[in-house]
């Protein structure tokens, strides 16, 4: 079988930082290759080169029998290489259907958009990726991160792909939506489309991939058929040493701990709520639900970003915050979903991104010395990979940006931590570090609310589990005594 894509000796440096040191890879038509590696290993850089988003310093790419040098993504798309980027790139002010058919909008010669026909053409695409509930006429910017992710995938279907590159497509999806995505991938595979699939969720790799390629420090360290590898072997290849995620004892709700926050039948007047719960010092509340269940909206209400139209929130430290600014001031810290749009200050340094929230509580003068020391400590604890603390955060790998945002929360020394998909795009090893950090802080009395699409994460970390479906609370119980199925079936409860 001749390869559809054949890559030899790809090299790439950013200034003096050698990111790719010579990558060789062959992919046949109809093959699904999982591309794995720790945060900063060079995965995104490599696929960006394949799809013409980045230039290369050295190496050859042969695609469909022809030597190619794509200098723009347009050329790559025309050749059939469709790349869904790690960071979302929908146009927020256009509607979902306009995004799906961006560029020509199916107008033909007239140039006039037929909204009805466009919507009709959009629905089957959305349904195929399990996003049938999204109205194609809605503005893309209003959708949650996970919904936008689904639209991106649907967008790829509207084009004629020969090689589909998915850079962490499932990072904000629950198993349900991920399964829909995998069905789509299998269908494309059966039509001879080759797929490069990047993920930090190893279980997915075994569900979908034919081959597993592991990158470390910019080079390929292993390339095996999926049947000839194992979870342990992959982790060892990624980290360069044998490594086991030490199982943590289940967290328990601390007995008689002081109340930190109480939500009394809160709702946003737009389909979310009423939701009630209590949060005590040391408690870790894990919030699960399908995409669109209202998890992010709940956190937004807690941090003052979204108006509460009914019910009330009481904080031990005072009144409910009326804005995110007030929330941080009263001891809440927020790690929002969607790191590119809601999280990072792209041109500021990693260090400033870490200390920015903490600084708001300080005096007028920036205390450079202590800020640097603090950033340095968190940087080391979380193992952020970058050229230095002065590097602009936009040039960090996705997972490392995420770690910096987590560090921002810790730096503020909060009493309540609100985390929306805290490990989005974070590699296996660092996930373990983050779990341990959260547990340790909870042991010292920090109260945590975290939203996650990963069921194992909910079960490993939470002391209390809450499940939302269609904006309602369908499960609220201590973690002990809950099984995977209890949580999943609560997530699938139909709308009343």
């Amino acid at each position: 079988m001749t390869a559809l894509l054949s890559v030899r000796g790809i090299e790439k440096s950013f200034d003096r930082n050698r990111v790719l040191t010579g990558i060789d890879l062959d992919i046949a038509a109809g093959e699904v290759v999982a591309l794995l590696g720790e945060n900063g290993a060079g995965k995104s850089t490599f696929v960006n080169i394949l799809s013409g988003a980045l230039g290369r310093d050295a190496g050859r790419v042969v695609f469909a029998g022809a030597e190619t040098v794509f200098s723009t993504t347009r050329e790559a798309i025309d050749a059939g290489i469709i790349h869904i980027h790690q960071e979302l790139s929908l146009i927020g002010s256009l509607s979902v259907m306009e995004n799906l058919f961006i560029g020509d909008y199916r107008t033909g010669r007239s140039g006039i958009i037929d909204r009805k026909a466009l919507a009709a053409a959009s629905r089957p695409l959305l349904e195929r990726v399990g996003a049938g509930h999204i109205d194609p006429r809605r503005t893309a910017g209003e959708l949650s991160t996970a919904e936008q992710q689904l639209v991106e995938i649907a967008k790829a279907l509207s084009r004629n792909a020969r090689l589909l590159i998915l850079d962490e497509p499932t990072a904000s999806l629950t198993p349900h939506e991920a399964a829909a995505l995998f069905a789509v991938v299998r269908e494309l595979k059966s039509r001879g489309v080759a797929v490069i699939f990047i993920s930090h969720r190893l279980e997915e790799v075994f569900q979908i991939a034919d081959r597993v390629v592991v990158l470390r420090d910019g080079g390929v360290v292993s390339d095996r058929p999926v049947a000839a590898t194992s979870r342990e072997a992959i982790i060892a290849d990624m980290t360069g040493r044998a490594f086991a995620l030490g199982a943590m004892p289940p967290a328990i709700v601390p007995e008689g701990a002081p109340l930190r926050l109480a939500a009394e039948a809160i709702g946003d007047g737009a389909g979310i709520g009423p939701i009630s719960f209590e949060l005590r010092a040391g408690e870790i509340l894990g919030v699960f639900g399908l995409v669109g269940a209202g998890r992010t909206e709940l956190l937004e209400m807690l941090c003052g970003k979204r108006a509460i139209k009914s019910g009330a929130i009481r904080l031990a430290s005072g009144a409910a915050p009326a804005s995110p600014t007030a929330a941080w001031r009263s001891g809440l810290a927020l790690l929002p979903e969607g790191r590119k749009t809601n999280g990072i200050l792209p041109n500021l340094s990693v260090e400033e991104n870490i200390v920015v929230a903490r600084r708001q509580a300080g005096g007028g003068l920036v205390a450079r010395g202590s800020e640097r020391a603090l950033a340095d400590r968190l940087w080391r604890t979380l193992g952020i990979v970058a050229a230095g603390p002065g590097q602009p955060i936009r040039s960090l790998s996705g997972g490392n940006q995420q770690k910096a945002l987590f560090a921002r929360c810790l730096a503020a020394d909060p009493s309540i931590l609100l985390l929306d998909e805290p490990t989005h795009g974070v590699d296996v090893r660092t996930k373990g570090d983050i779990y341990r950090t959260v547990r340790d802080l909870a042991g010292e009395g920090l109260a945590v609310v975290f939203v996650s699409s990963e069921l194992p994460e909910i079960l490993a970390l939470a002391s209390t589990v809450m499940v939302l479906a269609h904006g309602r609370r369908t499960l609220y119980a201590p973690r002990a005594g809950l099984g995977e199925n209890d949580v999943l079936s609560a997530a699938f409860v139909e709308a009343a």
Partner: protein
Amino acid sequence: MEGRSVVRFLRTRREATVLAMLVIVFLGLTFASEFFLTGRNLSNVARQISVVGIVALGQALVIIAGGIDLSVGSVIGLAAVTAAMVSAATGMPSLGIVGAIAIGMAVGFLNGVLVTRIRINPFITTLGTLSIARGAALLATNGNPQRFDNWAAWLGYGRIGEVPVQFLLLVALTLVVAFFATRTRWGRNVYAVGDNARAARLAGIDVARTRIMVFTLSGSLAGLGGLLLGGMLTNSNPNLGLGYELDVIAAVILGGVALSGGRGSIGGVVIGAALMGLLRNAFVLLNVSGYWQTITIGLVVILAVGADSLNRRREDD
């Protein structure tokens, strides 16, 4: 610094490109004209730089925060007549100084409130106040120039030795604003807000207050600029500062501030203002028509910004 990193610094920082241009023009003029290096001429150049530079400091903060302030030229005119009329009416020049800065501050604050509370786009808001402030200056004076030659005006026309007072003010304010921008919480928040306002808000920054603050600062500095310009001419014309916003914005952009917000340095802005002043002086000394001057300034801005964005593009998109 080793050779390569010097090249890299020059390549990646627009401040450096503009500084290099500044040095070249300076050296060129030194050889081309025997008058250039005289104390009298340099002192004139310093004067030309001062008001543009001072007003550009505030404008830079507004642009870094992701906004723009078109009203500064009109505020200069309004503040100049305010200074003259208040000191004439009260007999107290000190009140004239206070009045000029206060009226600028008020217009700036109004800009900030309109932008943040009523959410009118900064371009539109300040286009509106540009018109209003100019109209107010004309209305208050009935279109007549006002005499302004008391000691408050000295800030504009005075010299200490050969050095114009307003130039000393520029130096002092540059140091203050640079410190503010790099070493205070509020200054850093300006960058954060311009870089990604949504993320800044979610990280606990009071975005509205930050925006109101930069507009207020910009207005105040424009008010001071009006006081100095009126003083320099010992005559406050209500049409003073007409079109100044373009020079000021050009200096800011030339100095390396990104119009899209979040990026730029105060030092660069002053270098940008100095380059524009030096170019103007070059035309006078070399006896070239003023029309060429206008064209050249436009070319320089496009060149500097164009070179920079060509450099940047490879990294960004």
